């Protein structure tokens, strides 16, 4: 009996926390579904709209180039992911497997970058990006590069990949060598498939990070047609200053892709085995 009460209490607590955790979003959805005839400031607040309407969604869709924002966010996130996985698995291989001069020094230098918060060095990074002409005033391509390159390598990714390479048995490499593979073939054909699961973890977390990034794009972007979703959504506030129906509808539209991505990839996030993916 006691056990039942305990279980019941656990569920009550978890259900309330779960509701609290999505309540701000539900309230946004509720607001977005209310038409002009309904007072969104009504007391007591009406959680279920009297007349559900999608006019706010269609209205905001017409005024905001969501597709362009999605595409920009996607291009930036996809390239950030590809470059991160590629560069990290390249750099991690010798750090995990080879003996060479200065290995420890290089290792500690990479380690040191983990301690430097981006926010503290963003001003010189911006100046460097300007000097390299990687801004959207030059061309779209340069604009994208300016968004991507500062995040194309992450020491954390190198460490994650290095751990993965270390766990592969040495015999595999030796066998490949005896069979006549050169070192790049060993890396690309033998080892890379072995660390694919870690690559996937790195890819998923890098994607989420890049997709949500706000500070850097809001610094470098001047051209609205290159806006990523977070910057575009922040802009909603200025455009529809008091029109909370539109702001709510726009915000909800903007999170649909990442929610789908999350639900599809949920095992990466909630399996509990993402120990290595903790980022400082």
């Amino acid at each position: 009996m006691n056990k039942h009460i305990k279980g019941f209490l656990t569920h009550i607590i978890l259900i309330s926390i779960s509701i609290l955790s999505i309540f701000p979003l539900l309230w946004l959805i509720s607001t977005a579904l209310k038409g002009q005839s309904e007072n969104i400031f009504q007391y007591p607040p009406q959680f279920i709209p009297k007349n559900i309407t999608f006019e706010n969604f269609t209205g905001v869709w017409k005024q905001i180039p969501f597709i362009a924002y999605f595409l920009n966010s996607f291009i930036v996130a996809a390239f950030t992911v590809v470059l991160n996985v590629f560069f990290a698995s390249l750099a991690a291989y010798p750090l995990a497997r080879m003996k060479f001069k200065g290995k420890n020094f290089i290792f500690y230098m990479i380690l040191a970058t983990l301690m430097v918060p981006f926010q503290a060095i963003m001003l010189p990074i911006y100046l460097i990006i300007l000097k390299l002409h990687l801004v959207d005033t030059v061309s779209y391509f340069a604009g994208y590069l300016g968004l991507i390159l500062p995040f194309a390598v992450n020491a954390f990714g190198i460490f994650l990949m290095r751990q993965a390479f270390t766990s592969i048995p040495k015999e595999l490499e030796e066998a490949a060598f005896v069979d006549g593979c050169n070192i790049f073939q060993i890396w690309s054909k033998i080892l890379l498939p072995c660390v694919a699961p870690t690559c996937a973890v790195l890819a998923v977390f890098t994607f989420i990070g890049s997709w949500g990034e706000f500070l850097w794009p809001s610094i470098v972007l001047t051209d609205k047609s290159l806006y990523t979703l977070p910057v575009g959504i922040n802009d909603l506030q200025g455009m529809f200053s008091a029109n909370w129906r539109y702001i709510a509808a726009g915000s909800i539209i903007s999170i649909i892709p990442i929610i789908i991505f999350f639900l599809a990839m949920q095992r990466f996030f909630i399996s509990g085995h993402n120990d290595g993916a903790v980022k400082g």
Partner: protein
Amino acid sequence: MSKLLQKNNDRNIITVMYKYYKKYVPYLFILPAAILLFLFFFIPFFETVVLSFKDYSTDLYSPGFIGLENYKILLTSKEFYKVICNTLLYLIGAVPVLTIIPLVLAILINQKIRCLNLYKVLIYIPVIISIVVVAIAFKWLYATQGILNYIAEILGFSAIEWLTSPDVAIWSVIAVTIYKGIGYYMMIYLSALIGAPKELLEAADVDGANLLQKHLNVTIPYLMPTIALVVTVSSISALKVFAEIYVMTRGGPLDSTKTIVYYIYERAFENLDLSMASAASVILLIIVMIFSILNILVFERKKYQP
């Protein structure tokens, strides 16, 4: 004997292998990452320090070297004093909550219960949603005639100026940071709990320990390293908050929500005061580095062994 031969043979293969690839090969693998890290970490890092010793207020194009003058100005300015106080408030407000609530949730969820995954997904959703949307959602909750003030009214309070009162605003913003972090830290605890000593927990059950005793005496001591990790990680991320403040208050009212990263942003990109921005950046650097070094040396040493 044959084993020894075998071992010798193995060693030969490895030696031949290491000779086979030329000496520069390891560096070739590291080169692309190294170039980018140089360009976007090491150079900016040193440049931040150098900039902080220069005077940009008189000449933006050929600033003179003025030593520690910028730091003197910064550290004696009332505004920066306020900024540091706000940043500390942020730490005090966010870190304990982000350490304790996720811990309790993780212990609750780490049972064989129904709907486990559903709870995890719902609690994790704020983590994956863009901070901009989360901040907008809260701004709407905090509206003067919003739902939170309705609840306050029911509870017998007068309407609260969540984002417009200098005394309240920072706590309203901290709440957003907490809201967005809970799921993340809960997952860290959960992955640590996978290895929790089951025998000890069962022994505690047999000895008739109640739930609280059991977790206080077994789970919490076991999780101590993870708790410490969460404290440092959440401190570092509290030091780095920006988007919440940018979207919700822009540092106002009366600078009451201006924390250090927002200050750097404002100085650098709105006022073009590169000197103050870099001096403040160096101060942020030093604080974060202290936390990071503690974190790496004490808690994650094994993970980063060369």
